[in-house]
């Protein structure tokens, strides 16, 4: 089982990456002009009040001191306190993590449900009508601005047909899934377009590969050739593409969260950036980074599981 040995030592490689991210975020956020104290106080701000807030949150200390506080806190599993929300950043993130996570997961699930059959359909009828249709639809699908797509879906499914809620995030599990249907469809429509294209290309290649020829030459019917040889061999590049996209999704759901009023991390992040809520920006950035790193790690494990040739 030594092929999976990387599972043990890979996490150590995450540390420098996360450290790098913490530094970059820290510096980047403080490079942004604007002052959290002033944002908090709004138009009625007075210099005394501003200085008071800055002192409370340690913003008057030198940058490197602030960074060491941040790292020190991180070491103790804390991320400081939100200036805007006045609670622990970690707690704040915990309350907002689930919708984003759920959105990403259900989007990915929907994308796979859409992409695999479509890609299979296209690849097996290569250069014929279904293929052209799938290619055109998936090529077009990539180009839609998500917020516009989201609005159209709401108008169609929620206002006209009334089958899905307009927005929001439910209470119970089923209610949540129900509320997530449209948001994840929005994401899935563009994500599945990307996946379909990649998967189709891989499948076309695999269908023409020597492996498929060999299977046909020993009399395997096309369905076995496809499901047992072509599909497993086409999954690896798609898994990696999916991982990259999930990484991108984790940090990029803000538009969908905003249109569908999902109380997720994306919205929190945008509001935190706009109000210069440093601790929250840092915290969310770290969480996103960890999630991305984890997803890639997971993708590596899946790749190793799917393709015995791969060694990491």
């Amino acid at each position, binding site marked *: 089982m030594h092929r999976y040995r990387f599972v043990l030592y890979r996490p150590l*490689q995450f540390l*420098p*990456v*996360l450290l*790098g*991210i913490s530094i*970059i*975020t820290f510096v*980047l*956020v403080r*490079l*942004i*002009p*604007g002052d959290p104290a002033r944002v908090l106080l709004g138009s009625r701000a007075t210099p005394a009040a501003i200085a008071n807030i800055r002192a409370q949150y340690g913003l008057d200390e030198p940058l490197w001191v602030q960074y060491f506080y941040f790292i020190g806190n991180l070491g103790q599993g804390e991320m400081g306190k939100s200036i805007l929300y006045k609670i622990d950043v970690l707690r704040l993130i915990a309350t907002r993590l689930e919708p984003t996570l759920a959105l990403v997961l259900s989007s990915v699930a929907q994308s796979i449900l859409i992409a695999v059959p479509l890609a299979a359909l296209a690849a097996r009828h290569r250069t014929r009508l279904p293929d052209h249709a799938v*290619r055109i639809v998936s*090529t*077009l699908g*990539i*180009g*839609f*601005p*998500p*917020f*516009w797509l989201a*609005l159209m879906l709401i*108008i169609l499914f929620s206002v006209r047909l009334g089958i899905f809620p307009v927005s929001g995030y439910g209470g119970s599990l089923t209610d949540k899934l129900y509320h997530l249907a449209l948001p994840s469809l929005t994401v899935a429509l*563009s994500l599945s377009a990307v996946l379909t*294209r*990649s998967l189709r*290309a*891989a499948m076309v*290649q695999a269908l023409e590969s020597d492996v498929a020829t060999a299977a046909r030459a020993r009399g395997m019917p096309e369905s076995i050739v496809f499901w047992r040889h072509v599909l497993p061999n086409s999954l690896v*590049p798609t898994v990696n593409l999916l991982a*990259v996209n999930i*990484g*991108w999704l*984790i*940090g*990029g759901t*803000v*538009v969908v969260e*905003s249109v569908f009023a999902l109380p997720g991390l*994306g919205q929190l*992040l*945008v509001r935190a*950036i706009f109000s210069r809520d440093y601790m929250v*920006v840092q915290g*969310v*950035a770290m969480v*996103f*980074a*960890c999630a*991305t*790193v984890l997803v*890639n790690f997971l993708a590596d494990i899946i790749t190793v599981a799917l393709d015995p040739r791969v060694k990491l």
Partner: protein
Amino acid sequence: MAVLGLFLVLAVFAPFIAPYDPIFQDAAARLHAPSPAHPLGTDNFGRDILSRVIWGARIDLQIAVIGVVFPFIIGTTLGTIAGFFGGIVDVIFMRVVDVVLAFPFLVLMLSIIAILGPGLGSFYIAMALVGWVSYARLVRAQILVLKNSDYAVAAISLGFSRSRVMFRHLLPNAAAGSLVFVMSDAVLVLLNGAAISYLGLGVQPPLAEWGVMVADGQSFISTAWWITLFPGLSIVLLAFGFSLLGDALADLMGVHE
């Protein structure tokens, strides 16, 4: 190709094709539906949508092109160097890549825009800071294979300098895949631009840019659908054009995604 060509013509000849000044406000013609005078209607300032869509082609083509050119140049160069030299250079390079990949794109994008102010310049810089990674990874992987190819060994054995081998022999062959990726990346850049517009951080008004037009027209989506529809369609079509060009390039160069 025809799609891209059409947009290119629109962009180049915008001043001659567009029936109106794209920023001229006609208070008497606010929110007019498509009509012979305004074939695609007018927006809430009475500006002609057709003219704005035509002028927008300039901006959006520029976004798509500049948004990928710098990442492409930076990425392929760094990827080539890292792949070619390997060793510690490569190790450091890969860690940097890891950091950039794991870094939340949104944080970077919004921070850069906040630091430099909204506008195309900040957008390009943000795209370049993040976008190079994909190219670098693609090229590096190719270089790792190609540098052991016989023609690379041949070039070295013939006494060619490293930079000649890297940039004249290896890079052109390694960049084929990246060139195809450029096309899909251009689509992503366009969409990122649109997302930034949605957050209100798009190009400076009153510049006509499709993403901003769609975002601004949202308020009128149920009363004046034409404001969002046509620029939106333009984005989709331009993206479509790039994707097709990418497919064609892939076929031409025998590259598999």
